[in-house]
């Protein structure tokens, strides 16, 4: 663990920050993004596009609320379809991001410093995109709060055996913890931004008094005293620990939403583990994509080095292997288990009418990561970007397979019915992507997307003193 007072040289980490970076240069590079808004036009184009997608989400939700969830393609037996697929996918991304960031924060992995803000931001915004679904997928969304324990005159509490109740608790906790983790980590940075904004006003090259005030408010009066640092470190680490526990709880909980039933293909003790690994996998894939993009857009190659890319690629490779293990175990357990219904589900997953989902998992998420056995490819931002996208896509297919393909045909063949996606399912999902992009773009513009304080600490530990 690195603390601001640590002065021990760390030669091994010299590859994770470019040489010659000083406190001044780090702060300047990052804060300038927030102050000067580089690439103003391109940002606006991207933001307008994202807002248009948010508009699509708005239209889809409006129609949904007017007509009911019947505007989607869900039916009996496929009561959960793209709604829960998208939810599980987003929350998987969020969980993966948070877990990686929190775990490496606790383990003191130095290389995380450049990535943690991106990771936490992706995680929080993905959680926001996910949080749309648990409410809107309800038949009567205006009663969503019945799912929560609140005092009422009927003395009715949620049904605590239901995984759905715990999922609601999990996602609410997740939002709180992810927000706290992200925000607490940013407080010193906000202070830097505040100070720099004031300095800019003093130099008369900026008249951003309002900005200085806003950053001042969110910096919560941070002065950088030893006591502040002490408490900050404690709070940050406690939240990180909470985050780790919560991610495990959320993902296993989401898996128990399926495993807790008696349905073939769902009723499986391995499912919680598989869900957790899949979530981290998708989270890291998303982070990889976002990192490569931000690095390219804002020219952050001095702060995000090929070493970072290498670490992300290795993570993807390990997670790919873990996911392969889960898939293979499920395959063998089903094939050798002798349950005809389970075997039927597996058969339909692999060669049924929607076998594309299975093969997308295999070809997009499990296979391409093996490129990362080669060091040169690990350091290629293009390879990381493409593989990251493929993995994210493959894990979407994974959720689709687990939920939709399984539900279409369970025990009684008489009750089986195919599922077809409606335009409104797709519009809602595309809208949630728009929501993610729009929030991400706002964060990119107004927030320090690489942690200033962490980078400074990193530089200090590299140089063994204040550079």
């Amino acid at each position: 663990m690195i603390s601001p007072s640590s002065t021990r040289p760390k030669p091994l980490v010299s590859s994770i920050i470019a040489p010659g970076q000083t406190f001044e240069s780090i702060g300047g590079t990052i804060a300038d993004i927030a102050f000067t808004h580089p690439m103003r036009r391109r940002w606006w184009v991207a933001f307008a596009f994202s807002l248009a997608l948010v508009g699509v989400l708005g239209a889809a939700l409006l129609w949904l609320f007017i007509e009911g969830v019947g505007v989607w393609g869900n039916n009996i037996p496929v009561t959960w379809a793209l709604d829960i697929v998208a939810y599980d996918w987003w929350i998987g991304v969020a969980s993966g991001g948070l877990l990686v960031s929190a775990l490496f924060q606790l383990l003191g992995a130095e290389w995380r410093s450049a990535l943690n803000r991106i990771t936490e931001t992706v995680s929080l915004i993905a959680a926001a995109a996910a949080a749309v679904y648990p409410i809107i997928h309800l038949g009567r969304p205006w009663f969503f709060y019945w799912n929560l324990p609140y005092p009422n005159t009927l003395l009715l509490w949620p049904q605590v055996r239901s995984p759905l109740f715990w999922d609601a608790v999990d996602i609410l906790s997740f939002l709180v913890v992810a927000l706290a983790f992200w925000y607490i980590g940013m407080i010193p940075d906000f202070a830097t931004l505040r100070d720099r904004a004031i300095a800019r006003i003093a130099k008369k090259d900026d008249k951003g008094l309002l900005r200085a005030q806003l950053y001042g408010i969110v910096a919560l009066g941070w002065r950088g005293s030893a006591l502040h640092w002490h408490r900050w470190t404690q709070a940050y680490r406690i939240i990180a620990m909470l985050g780790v526990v919560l991610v495990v709880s959320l993902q296993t909980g989401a898996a128990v939403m399926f495993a807790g039933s008696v349905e073939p293909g769902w009723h499986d003790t391995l499912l919680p583990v598989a869900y957790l690994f899949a979530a981290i996998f998708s989270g890291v894939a998303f982070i990889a994509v976002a990192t490569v993009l931000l690095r390219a857009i804002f020219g952050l190659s001095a702060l995000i080095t090929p070493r970072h890319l290498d670490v992300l690629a290795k993570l993807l490779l390990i997670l790919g292997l873990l996911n392969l293990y889960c898939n293979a175990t499920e395959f063998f357990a089903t094939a050798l288990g002798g349950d005809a219904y389970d075997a039927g589900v597996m058969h339909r997953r692999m060669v049924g009418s929607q076998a594309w989902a299975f093969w997308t998992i295999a070809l997009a998420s499990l296979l391409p990561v093996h490129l990362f056995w080669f060091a040169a490819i690990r350091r290629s931002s293009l390879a990381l970007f493409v593989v990251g996208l493929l993995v994210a896509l493959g894990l979407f297919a994974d959720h689709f397979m687990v939920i939709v393909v399984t539900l279409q045909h369970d025990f009684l063949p008489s009750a089986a019915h195919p599922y077809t996606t409606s335009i409104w399912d797709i519009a809602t999902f595309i809208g949630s992507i728009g929501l993610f992009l729009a929030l991400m773009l706002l964060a990119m513009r107004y927030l320090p997307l690489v942690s200033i304080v962490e980078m400074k600490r990193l530089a200090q530990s590299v140089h063994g003193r204040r550079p």
Partner: protein
Amino acid sequence: MTARHDPQAVDLATIRETLASGQGPTFWQSFDAVARTPAFRRFLEREYPAAAHLAAGPDRRGFFKLMAASFAMAGLAACDAGDDGRAKEVAYVRQPEGLEPGVPLSYASTTVIDGYANGVLVTTVNGRPIKIEGNPDHPWSRGGTDIFGQASVLGLYDPARSQAVRYLNRISTWDTFRAAMIGPVAALRADQGRGFRILTGPITGPSLIAQIQALLTDFPQARWHMTPPVSQGGLAEASQTLFGRRLDTRWHFDRARVVVAIDGDFLDPGPQQVGLSRAWVEARDASAGPLLTLHALAATPTLTSAKADYHLAAEPRDIAALVDRLAAAVDAPPTASDGRTAQWIARAATALRDAKGAGLVLAGAMQSAAVHAAVHRLNAALGNIGTTVTFTEPVLPDAGTVDGLVDAMAAGDVSTLLMLETNPVYTALSDIGFANALAKVTTKIYAGLYVDETALRCDWHLPLTHPLECWGDARAVDGTASLIQPTVKPFYDGRSAAEILSLLFDGEARDGLAILRAHWQGSQNAATYEPIWRTALLDGFLPGTASPEVSPPALAPKSADAPGAPLDLRPDTVTLLFRPDPTIWDGSLAASGWLQELPKPLTKIVWENVVAISPALAQQHQLENGDVVALALDDRSLDVPVWIVPGQAARTMTLTLGYGRRVTDTIFDGLGYDANVMRASPSPWLTDGVSLTKTGRKAVIATTQDHNSMEGQNFIRVARDGDAPQRQGEGVRPSLYGAADKPKDERAWGMVIDTDRCTGCNACVVACQSENNIAVVGKEQVAMGRGMHWLRVDRYYSLAKTDGNGLDDPDTHFQPVPCMQCELAPCEVGCPVEATLHDSEGLNLMVYNRCVGTRACSGYCPYKVRRFNYLDYSGGVAPSIQSGRNPDVSVRSRGVMEKCTYCVQRVAEARITADKAGAPIKDGTVQTACQSACPTRAITFGDLADSASAVAAKRNDPRNYDLLGELNLRPRTTYLAERAPRLPAKEG
């Protein structure tokens, strides 16, 4: 448009010529001037029947007068409170005696299908009939009902029903009608009724028949024609040919030890279904020793062939020869064996020979006179006549045929035609040209429930009252005269057929009750008849009115030119069979949303018809389900999608009636394909030599069951006759939750469904829909997988029962699947808001107003019996339909899950009654809707904790098993295995 040449047709060109030639008026301001020419009048009548009266009517000035009056009247109409059915209601200022708000009252009445009666009890709440139940006292239906009876309650509330008298398709009144008819009726009377014809649908009601016959006495030159019941097919003709007179055949399953059905239809929809399926099932259940085996030979799969123990698919043209072979095999067992056909014949022949005098061979109504004759001879030779087969006087009265009417109309011999309860323009065979002949009739009066094809071609359309709102009578298939009692004041301005006849021909129009009472009272004293009449009304029928048995008639000698070699048909053609539709019958019930959305028992298709095709033929033509084929024969052709039906004879296709109609503003407009296009006399049920071409188009067909096979599982189990009784169920296994879910109360509701008794008739499904306010969602929603039926009847094909022949002729099984009410219900684990939970008596309840719609319960349900209101299915329906809903059952809003709750409202009612009385609920007090509707009593419901209950006894039957028992969910609904005869030793 018809292409037939009309000798009187004059086209516009002639009129143009008249005008151009100067023979017409030189100056003409309006068509009046030209219209005076008879040619133009004819043209106008032919092309614009509705406008013809304008030409004949007042002049321009008069027209404006009429219009002014019309506008004034239209203004008056606006003063009405609207057409929501409330305008005629009168609030109960003083409580009528015997009526408590919210307390159901039951009236014995009769539902009519195809002219025949089924005795029912009509449940009314707050004066509204809301549910049909079986009448257990009725000698024919004995408490059972059919889909048609169950659905009739929806027909009553149908806002699309004809609501007013129409003259030339404009709203008119009864007074206008009567006034307009006084002159013509007087003229007819003076002329002894020459040129006057009555055409009715099938009528069995003694009072109506008497009324018509009295009318024919008054008008000796008048004639009565009747469209024959669809369910009778060729029976009347066969009987006439065989015995020289019409006789009804009675089958006595209880005296039989083996039944051989030649294209039999006694279990299929129709007036015979309720009575005969009950009789057959009871005989099968009661059969001591070997099972009462059913051998069936069928060209197209029916419910009868589906329930058969030994079934054989045979080409329709081979059936007569096969019966001859069967007869020969009974005399001399054949030695050679050439596969399934010979095996089937040998087995049936052996069984018949072994059960002489107790065998029963029967033939379906659609079979030819030759087949009926062969069957009759076989029964006679086996000594079955008089024991298992008897004869009674016919229920149907004698009346002229539709062909005779068309001939008379075409010849111009008909001046006035009165049509009652029939829609001949749609139902008459296309080649006899009913519609064209009808155009030659001067005065066309049509009384019907709907403004349909015939109504649009008539001068006068009179709205009939629905059977639930008028007096009347009808005979059941066994002849029992059953009374139709109104259960509500007529919603609209309709009259019954009897009242219309009275209005037309009686000096003073009598009401339905007076006509009915007068008929049955006859010459008896009113005071002494009163108690008899009251009892009859309470019972719903007149006891002892079943048709009298007649001694077995002498059989006409076998004609020399008996069917010879089967027709030599071109190999590229097929035989097209026609059958009444299993849900909407001949189209007369097409307006019922419940029946339209009811899955056809074998194909599970909803909202339309398709042509059934055998797997072999489909393979030969490379056809898949939904592929549109062009059927053609001579000048007849029809494009229709195919549906592959196992058990269909290889070279035979089957199309059901009742679809392909074009009547605007109806729910059936444009649904399905019109079978009548391909039908022709003299063989209305079969067309040979139809060519089949693949068009390459594909139609979207909505079906509720895509998968036919049990996929290697034993959802349906078979208990073989003679095998040692072997418990089918797994017994109770431990659960993680231990004894926590044991019923805390002394009651434990449970249900046992006997799959051997289930004939797949669907009565339970409609009864459930009616009882539980289940929404109709339409074809698109069903195709998406959002049908709302709480109870479905699964249909599987297998080779489990006997010796089915793969895909071509497999065994068919039916399995009604309601909610299993699992004791360890997985759905309850899923619900986060406790909207679905157990009550103390073991019911798995749905609390609709607590449901937020997560749908987790459905995902968790291994039986997938839960239904979700994806859209607002119930909110937007017509107010009149809303008023027919069961007030004891919540109407579910959008976004709410729903499912079977064992009719919890009935359980609750019984509990309240029992609690008030301080007595336990007696076994049999609570009947679920599906249970009470079932004609074969396949469903038993009651308290499992009561060891003396019927349901507990059924649970102890060795045939009892749990569906998906391996999941250990402890379902409260269990099944009894189907029974099958002992498999014979393989023939060498």
